[in-house]
């Protein structure tokens, strides 16, 4: 929800980086959020953390 709120206020073309250690967030929730909004996203794992980049279209 926090990410959705931040995305709402983000300018088009900007990228939001989400850092989480909750794997389902990176695998399910955030991709679903980005898909629902039609935004480009990329997810990667760095050790214990997951980084999800969502680009506001």
């Amino acid at each position, binding site marked *: 929800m926090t990410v959705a709120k931040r995305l709402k206020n983000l300018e088009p073309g900007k*990228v939001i*980086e989400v850092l989480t250690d909750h794997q389902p967030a*990176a*695998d399910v929730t955030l991709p679903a959020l980005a*898909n629902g909004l039609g935004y*480009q996203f990329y997810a*990667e794992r760095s050790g214990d953390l997951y980084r999800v980049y969502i680009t506001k279209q």
Partner: protein
Amino acid sequence: MLEHFVFSYGFVFVYAVFGIAGFIVGWVAQRGNYCFVNAMSAIFTTKSYDRFGALLILFGTSALATGGLVAFGFIPAVDQYYDNYFSGWYIIVGALIFGFGATMAGGCNLSMLYRAASGYVQNWLELFGMMLGTLIFAIAIWPTQSFTMTNGILSTKEGAYIEYLPYDIFHSVAGWSVGITALAVGVPLVAIGLYLQAKTRRKWASLGIGASAPIVGTTMATPAPALNSGGLPIGGGIPMIKPSSFLGRIRTTDIKNMILLRMPYSVNLSTALLAIALLMVFVSGAGYTFNYLVITSSDGGRFLEYILMPFGVNLALGTPWYNNALAIVDPSVLMVIMLIVGAFTASTLSGDFKIRVPHERKRLVIGFLGGILVGIGVRVALGCNIGMMWTNFAQLGYDGILFLVSMLGGVWLAIKVQQHLV
């Protein structure tokens, strides 16, 4: 307990099968990130019906499978409906409270357990809150609720065949009536589930998601995340690989990655495995015990009893509900213990295990308070999303529908509250 046993292999075998089923459920739920609350909340937050569709497929498949076994005479009908629940105001009220509490706390009973086993401290507190909520229910609510159930006040006076749809519709529990009912319940659920999944995936596919690519929303076209000189994204980490079943197709490499715990299980694979676990207990427990998956009687009810035992307190001696509604131990205890073991093992071997404390400490308090509501809600509703909702579809009852709708209402309410808190 029924007077006859369907199969004569004895209680040890029944306990063993329940334990194995529990291990499977814990392992699969952890690997598949299977959460009923997330599936429902996704409808409202991200407009994704993929996981909710999987739930409907699970319910429909369960109804078809158990109904089929009864219709073809492998299992007597009485073993399908014997433990059918009462129905009344408490299903609706309890499911609403449960849906609200579980969403606030961070997970349904299944996800609470596997996340607790994976190291999520918030879910530990949700579990303790649930035990406390069960005690509050037992002392403050059960006497009144029990009175309404006994006297039929906005309630049926009994369960079993009264709640059994083949009997309600055809006034018969013969194979043909069970078979027709199972088809009438199961086929639409599976069809709607598949439709919702297809609808969601069509929408995603139209955005250009590569089935075999890392998790990207489109191909790496501009504007893309900034890349370093080596061509890797900013974080320099390992791209997450999405199973191609994300869009409905499974490749050989996906199967290999899932076996090696490099990739989460796809939602439909998880659904199929969970349905198999339900069937295992349905067949093995027939005539011996409540032959469905039950969680909250153990983790919410019995665990508190067990915690107090070393201190010389036996709740079963005098506390309402504990002293007449909850056997001191049954196969579901072993199922829940092995569920925790299965989830813990899966999370450790996959590298996912970590003690996780929320960044915002208030989430711990919300988790605990939500857990109390979960404990109250599941006991009022006579069960949780597993033991009441999912089970009731397999029992060919109608409480499952009531629970589903009410739980959706509770989830929606909680999301509205959370959106104000964010």
